[in-house]
């Protein structure tokens, strides 16, 4: 029953604090012959599986490494040469490819925080009932998102295992911590990232 991550989002929708805990692993490594029966495409400037999902490798997985050499975007991390070019040459086969999801980068987290900020507002706007709050709990098959917005508009977001009930206590504790440490710190200005 794990907590995956915690985010704090400011009134304006920017991410001011985040931390990851138990992020589950999804990597799959497999050896391939020529021609490669997995089709890759560039998504978010990274190579992802577009067709040919199998053996735990799923559409949308990123190519993480080739023969143990880490891949960064569309190039090799070590010598910055093009990965697709390497995959296109028959003499490089058989080849071992590692696929999986990747940890979110800071930029992605900032983007997702602002996305949630607007989803939260939509949840309120599209309510069939009067005076609704925004999203408090969001369930997916793989995780659960718990959110508490303070009266001042700051959102505390906790990502957990989907089986966990609403973590009200934890959200409350987070707020207390935030008030204690961040707000009582004279060098901290509201809406700025917490260090």
């Amino acid at each position, binding site marked *: 029953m794990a907590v995956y991550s915690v985010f704090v989002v400011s009134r304006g929708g920017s991410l001011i604090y985040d931390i990851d805990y138990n992020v589950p692993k999804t990597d799959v490594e497999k050896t391939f012959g020529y021609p490669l029966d997995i089709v890759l495409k560039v998504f978010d400037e990274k190579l992802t599986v577009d067709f040919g999902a199998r053996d735990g490798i799923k559409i*949308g997985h990123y190519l993480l490494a080739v023969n143990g050499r880490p891949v960064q975007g569309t190039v090799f991390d070590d010598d910055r040469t093009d990965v697709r070019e390497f995959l296109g040459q028959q003499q490089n086969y058989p080849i071992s490819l590692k696929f999986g999801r990747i940890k979110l980068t800071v930029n992605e987290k900032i983007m997702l925080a602002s996305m949630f900020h607007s989803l939260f507002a939509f949840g309120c706007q599209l309510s069939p009932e009067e005076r*609704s709050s925004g999203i408090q709990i969001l369930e997916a098959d793989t995780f659960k998102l718990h959110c508490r917005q303070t009266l001042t508009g700051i959102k505390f977001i906790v990502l957990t295992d989907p089986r966990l009930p609403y973590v009200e206590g934890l959200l409350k504790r987070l707020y207390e911590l935030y008030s204690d440490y961040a707000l009582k710190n004279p060098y901290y200005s509201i809406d700025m990232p917490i260090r």
Partner: protein
Amino acid sequence: MIFNLYIFDRLGTCVLYAEWNRKKPANLPKDEEFQNMYGMLFSLRSFVKRLSPLDCKDGFLNYQTSKYKLHYYETPSGLKLVMNTSTDVGDIRETLRQLYGQIYVEYVVKNPLCPLDKPITSDFFKDKLETFIKALPFY
């Protein structure tokens, strides 16, 4: 308690909207509300897919606010069923699946006079839907 139901086809057309105990009058014209709802669903799915620490199968299932709970079920063919209920309603994906299989497939898919990509006009479908909804324990 059930508030309302939206069904979107995979091209984002709202092919059905119905409401039961909705108290808050819509503050937007209907087509704008549909557009916003579809837009929100689209973002929600993309948000969940990116944020998920593991590979999603069904992805987004539901969310809850202080006043209502939005339940989501998407068929592999991309039909999207959205039902808003009060917050005391549990997991109703199976109900939405039945609504798809027993009502939509039977009275829209099997009715040649109902185009699949246009708002549903069949009265027979609407009658069946009404009966189905009102028979639900959490109606």
